[in-house]
């Protein structure tokens, strides 16, 4: 379970400061597929960066299974990070390594992985994401959708409990988007991984999410079960996203 409590992130100081997140509170239950939707610049990526502690929150807390991540450091923090796979907006693959080496990378950071075990795990993951035939290819030789799949396989390598995805479909065509969403749903069902999806596309949320939080200008405008929020939107931001009159 991920609990975000009164999370605030301010960039810069004084006149020039930007409040990217303003007292954001939400709870992601274990096993959920949770969507975070908002317009560009709403603070979605900042939220993800605070969850993975790439940014230090200005105030507020993030609890992973009840434990405050800001209080963690060293090995405990690295351990917590391995339980949370992150798929970045720009994939962030190692460009000088093959697909298989990219997926093996997080495993080789841990002690105690035998060579055969790593190979078997990599094969298993590449089959899961449908890229078994691309093991020896380099990222530069792949399409955007294929790179996204490699990034997902890599994020799943250490068997995390949670997968954070930043705009997993924004660079993909509608058909590839469908297969990407199917893959994420399979991962959620088969592996029991909690998934947090950041997106600006309504179709993504209505296709696979059970819960959604609508973010506008750094604030949570509305949250709840997807049907409720989308059939009876309460906030102007949601209505805007749903393309209705404000």
């Amino acid at each position, binding site marked *: 379970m991920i609990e975000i409590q009164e999370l605030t992130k301010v960039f810069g100081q004084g006149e020039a400061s930007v409040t990217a997140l303003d007292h954001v509170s939400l709870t992601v239950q274990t096993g959920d597929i949770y969507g975070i939707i908002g317009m560009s610049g709403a603070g979605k990526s900042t939220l993800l960066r605070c969850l*993975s502690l*790439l940014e230090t929150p200005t105030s507020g807390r993030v609890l992973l299974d009840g434990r405050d991540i800001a209080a963690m450091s060293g090995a405990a*923090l*690295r*351990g917590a*990070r*391995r339980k*949370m796979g*992150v798929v*970045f907006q*720009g994939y*962030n*693959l*190692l*460009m*000088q*390594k093959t697909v298989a080496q990219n997926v093996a*990378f*997080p495993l*080789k*950071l*841990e002690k105690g992985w035998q060579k055969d075990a790593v190979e078997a795990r990599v094969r298993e993951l590449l089959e899961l994401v449908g890229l078994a035939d691309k093991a020896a290819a*380099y*990222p*530069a*030789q792949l399409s955007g959708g294929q790179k996204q799949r490699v990034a997902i396989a*890599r994020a799943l390598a*250490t068997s995390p409990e949670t997968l954070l995805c930043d705009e997993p479909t924004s660079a993909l065509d509608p058909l590839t988007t469908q297969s990407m969403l199917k893959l994420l749903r399979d991962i959620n069902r088969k592996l029991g991984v909690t998934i947090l999806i950041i997106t600006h596309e309504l179709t993504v949320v209505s296709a696979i999410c059970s819960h959604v939080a609508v973010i506008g200008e750094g604030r949570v405008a509305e949250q709840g079960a997807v049907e409720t929020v989308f059939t009876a939107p309460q906030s102007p931001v949601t209505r805007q996203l749903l393309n209705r009159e404000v």
Partner: protein
Amino acid sequence: MAEFLEQYGLLLAEGTLETLYMTGAATFFAYVLGLPMGVLLTVTKPGAIAPAPRFNWVFGWAVNILRSIPFIILMFFMIPATRAIVGTSIGATAALVPLSVSAAPFVARMVEQSLEEVDKGVLEAAVCMGATRWQIITRVLLVESVPSLLRGLSICIITILGYTAITGSVGAGGLGNIAYRFGYQRYQTSVMYVVIVMIILLVCIIQTIFDAAARRTDKRNR
């Protein structure tokens, strides 16, 4: 031609080998010193993986100051240190000390530039996978930047090759010494021309080899 070769062939071959020895060994020691310096310059920047802004500022200036000392002055300045390390201040091996020390800060800046090119997002991804700083340095920074490091290496080798010619003029041997002795002291310009051609050839060969190596290792463009 045959007469020339008979008279100077052995001398030139010896000179070339000596130049290659000085260049190779000095480059090696310059990287032993300069590579960690370059890594340190990169990772201690504000916002990098081991931020230490004040140290970074001081260290950056120390590198700049060392870099701004002209090689020929550093060479004379280092004579006592060279004697202490090598036992003598004359000859090719003795020349390695000022060559390495002088090239190290240059190498550090070249390495820093290569490491800067590594995508910040990839470093963040490694952080999120639970990598330690050491793992990020050895498995991401120094691996993702290999093609760029190789290009920097070729520039460093060629620069050091140029420096060896200066040490040659003060008795460290090599092609520089031959050019000095025959071309300057005895006015045998034909020897000097051959030396110049040899050095140009060496530079071309080094450049070609490393360009090819950098292209071969770079997996980004294929």
